[in-house]
């Protein structure tokens, strides 16, 4: 009877079928054809307004600030809702075609289309600012706890954050950077928490999460540039000597400086590898989740029954991929911090003692 141990499972199955019937009704109505490419790409790339949902005919999205500087007319700052649906405002519009697709362009008086200096608050920027505020709130509360009661261990969520900070400091930063790890700890810990929070917020489907921040090449490139500066601005004399005059056979250095050239090339490729690794992992993860969701609609266009059947499997797959994505988020933040600390440690190594 109702004390059957499968009762919960049956109820869930019944609810699933009941709620999937509207999918059946919806796909028989006439709608704009579903374009999976546009759906996927639109969700993983940046945009000038934060689209939340679409209910019926009305779209709910949060308009953000567009800040552009035209070549001759100076700075403009306006709400991005003025550029909705391809409208033109003060000579600016969002372009539909390559090469400036989905970016604000300016139509000059002579008809030419150029791209103005654009420092708008786009979806990624807004999400980045929200995540930074979140991190500052959490970490500063932890610091405040210690300032108030220095001998008491924090409990609850702050205790968990403290465990993570100590784990990264003791397992990653101290062994890899070496003796003066305290100088680089602030930067490396900030890097770790920044990447971790942005990755995790990207997994949450609704506002304020859901923006693909670390899957954006511009953001990962700035972090890679910061690591590049941290490595090279404070490098040892030993480090530079190993690059320009490495301890290899002389004919690899003179007359043709092959090894120095390779080492110089290596200075640049290591941060570039960091950048591309994080970007590609995050972008690929988000795209996979989007593609599984899009499969429901693709199969639903064929026939509503197929759509219903596929949607059950697609949702389970998407949940599984989200768990994998969670793992990848944490691992990628960890690996970025680990490799940054390894490179910084390599740049500050003591010279090898000559064996006698």
């Amino acid at each position, binding site marked *: 009877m109702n004390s059957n141990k499968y009762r919960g499972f049956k109820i869930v199955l019944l609810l699933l079928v009941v709620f999937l019937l509207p999918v059946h009704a919806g796909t028989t109505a006439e709608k704009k054809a579903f374009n999976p490419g546009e759906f996927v790409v639109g969700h993983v790339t940046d945009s000038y307004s934060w689209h939340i949902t679409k209910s019926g005919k009305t779209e709910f999205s949060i308009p953000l600030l567009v800040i552009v500087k035209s070549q001759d007319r100076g700075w403009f700052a306006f709400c991005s809702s003025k550029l909705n649906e391809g409208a033109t405002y003060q000579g600016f519009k969002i372009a539909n075609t390559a090469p400036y697709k989905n970016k604000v362009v300016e139509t000059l008086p002579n008809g030419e289309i150029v791209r103005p200096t654009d420092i708008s608050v786009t979806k990624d920027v807004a999400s980045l600012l929200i995540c930074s505020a979140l991190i500052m709130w959490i970490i500063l509360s932890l610091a405040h706890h210690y300032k108030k009661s220095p001998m008491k261990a924090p409990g609850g969520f702050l205790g968990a954050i403290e465990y993570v900070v100590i784990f990264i400091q003791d397992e990653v930063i101290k062994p890899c950077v070496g003796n003066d790890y305290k100088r680089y700890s602030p930067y490396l810990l900030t890097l770790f928490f920044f990447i971790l929070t942005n990755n995790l917020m990207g997994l949450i489907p609704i506002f304020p999460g859901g923006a693909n921040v670390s899957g954006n090449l511009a953001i990962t490139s700035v972090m890679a540039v910061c690591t590049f500066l941290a490595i090279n601005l404070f490098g040892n004399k030993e480090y530079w000597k190993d690059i320009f005059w490495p301890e290899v056979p002389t004919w690899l250095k003179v007359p043709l400086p092959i090894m120095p050239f390779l080492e110089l090339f290596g200075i640049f490729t290591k941060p570039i590898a960091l950048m*591309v*690794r994080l970007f590609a992992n995050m972008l690929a993860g988000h795209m996979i989740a989007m593609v599984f969701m899009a499969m429901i609609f693709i199969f639903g266009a064929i026939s509503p029954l197929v759509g219903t059947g596929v949607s059950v499997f697609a949702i389970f797959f998407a949940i599984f991929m989200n768990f994998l994505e969670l793992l990848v988020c944490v691992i*990628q933040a960890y690996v970025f911090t680990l490799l940054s600390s390894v490179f910084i440690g390599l740049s500050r190594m003591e010279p090898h003692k000559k064996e006698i």
Partner: protein
Amino acid sequence: MAKFGAALGAGIAAIGAGIGIGRIGGSAVEAIGRQPEAANDIRMNMIIAAALVEGVALFAIIVAVLAIVM
């Protein structure tokens, strides 16, 4: 033609990643079998090595995407 090349490249990258991470996982599991007390250390090292190999496979994916859009 570019799309064909890109799809082929992505498939080969997947093969590379599969072989690499499979070998890492196999050695890690074997090592845990030999010395179960070291399981935590081995697991951490396996995850780091897997992330690095996956990074290389994703470089290939980026090249494939560039082949399509450029």
